[in-house]
């Protein structure tokens, strides 16, 4: 049997197929039609059972004859599979960020989500990268080259953007500003971790974890090592595929 896990996220769609190990993993942009992109991603792929997670799950699953699971459960299952010792997951996605505390058995014990606005999410960094005229893939390295620390007070994307504009106008260097922005996110995530309680080992996943600076700042803030999986974006899709294999209880 081949199990497919689809993570229909707000910014990207991720697919993992699994039999006794991961067969393949793929990532694509969500664009304007989540369903269309999901179909494209699945076309030509062999699978017997599909589980959909992510923001678009309720839209996509009925059409593609899949079952649904929340991202929280999907990340918990995916991260535990990759790192059996994992007890805390930090996910910085395109439109939300979450912190999940796992029990010894690997079930979700507590979670915190930051989803009311772009603050502390990948979108926040995207907007700021634009303002600083760097590519999103480069903003982390830019921040790592900072020489001094400035403080950004606003976590609201709109306000932070105007704060950045004022900092530019004040003659602050873009690398220093970039670091300040990363620190603002790390601090927000740090607060969420405090709410659920800190426990090792910590897995940092989602698109945000490609950002080396965020990883480093989180380690500083939490005073713990933070593990980034090899394919951090597909942890949720992997979890969904594993749930397809396990069978979703009660559904």
């Amino acid at each position, binding site marked *: 049997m081949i199990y497919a896990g689809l993570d229909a996220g707000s910014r990207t769609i991720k697919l993992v197929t699994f039999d006794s190990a991961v067969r393949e993993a793929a990532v694509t942009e969500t664009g304007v039609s989540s369903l269309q992109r999901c179909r494209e991603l699945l076309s030509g792929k062999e699978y017997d059972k599909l589980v959909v997670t992510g923001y678009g799950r309720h839209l996509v699953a009925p059409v593609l004859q899949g079952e649904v*699971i*929340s991202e*929280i459960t999907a990340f918990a299952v995916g991260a535990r599979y990759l790192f059996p010792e994992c007890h805390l997951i930090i996910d910085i996605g395109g439109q*939300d960020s979450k912190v999940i505390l796992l029990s010894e058995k690997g079930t*979700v014990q507590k979670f915190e989500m930051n*989803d009311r606005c772009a603050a502390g999410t990948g979108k926040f960094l995207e907007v700021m990268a634009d303002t600083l005229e760097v590519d999103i893939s480069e903003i982390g390295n830019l921040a790592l080259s900072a020489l001094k620390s400035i403080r950004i007070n606003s976590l609201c994307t709109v306000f932070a953007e105007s704060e950045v504009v004022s900092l530019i106008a004040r003659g602050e260097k873009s690398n220093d500003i970039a670091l300040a922005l990363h620190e603002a996110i790390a601090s927000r995530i740090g607060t969420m971790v405090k709410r659920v309680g800190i426990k090792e080992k910590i897995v940092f996943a989602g698109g945000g974890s490609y950002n080396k600076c965020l990883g480093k700042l989180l380690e500083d803030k939490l005073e713990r090592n933070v593990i980034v999986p090899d394919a951090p974006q597909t942890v949720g899709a992997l979890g969904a595929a594993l749930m397809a294999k396990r069978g979703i209880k009660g559904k």
Partner: protein
Amino acid sequence: MTNDNVQMWEKLDIDMKPHAMLMTALGPMYQEIYLAQENRPEGMGFYDMVVGDIHGIRVRELHEHSKTGGKVVATYCVFVPEEIVWAAGGIPVGLCAGTQFSIPIAESVLPRNTCALIKSSFGFKLGRICPYVQVSDLIVGETTCDGKKKMFEILGLHHQVYVMEVPNKKTPASRQLWLDEVNDFKDVIEDLTGNKVTAENLKEAIDNVNRRRQALKRLYHLRKVRPVPISGKDALLVTQVSFYDDVKRNTEMINKLCDELDQRVKAGGGVAPADAKRILVSGSPIAIPNWKLHHIIESAGAVVVGEESCTGTRFFSDLVESSGDGLDAQIKAIADRYMNIHCACFTPNEERLDDIVRMAKEYQVDGVVHYHLQFCHTYATEAVQVEKRLEEEGIPLLRIETDYGDEDTGQIKNRVDAFLEMI
């Protein structure tokens, strides 16, 4: 929408265009959230009829009452002792304040970072889109939060407003203050109606309101059964409608519904499967037509079996127990009963935490969803204590902060789905 209604609304100085938009929006929303439910009790037919003509039937009764010189007293809060209004021949109506629709109007005056309930209620008056507000002779406010307190001052520029002071502590001095407030309220109502509150008419009013409370208690008691015989949405609607319907008719309707539910329970029938996750909702009031949270929870396959809120148990769980005869003893009994509402405006408010834990057990819940409106500081901050207490008791909790808008529905669904998978 009948011509009679239109004429009546015009007489009540309703701003017809936005009002028509509001009425048009409500129908499909009710269809989707309520009528599409399966296996509903027949007794809900009355409520479907009431909501189907939400600004018609009942407003007409109030309007007729007005025409013959009767007074209508509008309230926003479960602290205003309705018995006194009934006793003096007035009709109390709890105003709704539960829709996004009136909020942009309110935001032209009030600060945006004010809770949705305050903005919605104020917007209804400012925009002249609620016939219940328009038909009322007096709006009675209270001091249960700072936002409301200040809003009532501004509302007073547009309508006759009287504010009762609800104390913040439960000391003997606070109780005395509240007793004085209830007595003053009696005077205000007597002046307004031109009728005296007597031991006789007050006794009748107390009995009538108590009977409705008992009927609601009966309904909630039935929700403790597994499988639950009525959906959380339907039960919530019954409570919401109780705020503005005639007390005697409403009592009769609730009891009729409960008779049906009794039969259902005897036959082992339920509205959701016996293994559906059972949820207690606790927190800020959920005013009509704010069905958002219940709809999300029940659409996810769980069932809401209780509300620890002002549109739930805080509205009816205690009766007025008049021990002695005579007006003074009755007023004292009324004051005591209302002081026993465990609102987050009090400090400390440990009793509310006890209530939540007790209800979680009695209603056999799998988890509690703590609901508070954005910028509702009392409930938002008290949620910290709720979380701590429930953690000690081993009861899972999900905290939801939201308002009346739909834009965060997806995010709330996410959290609710994850919570249901977790518990």
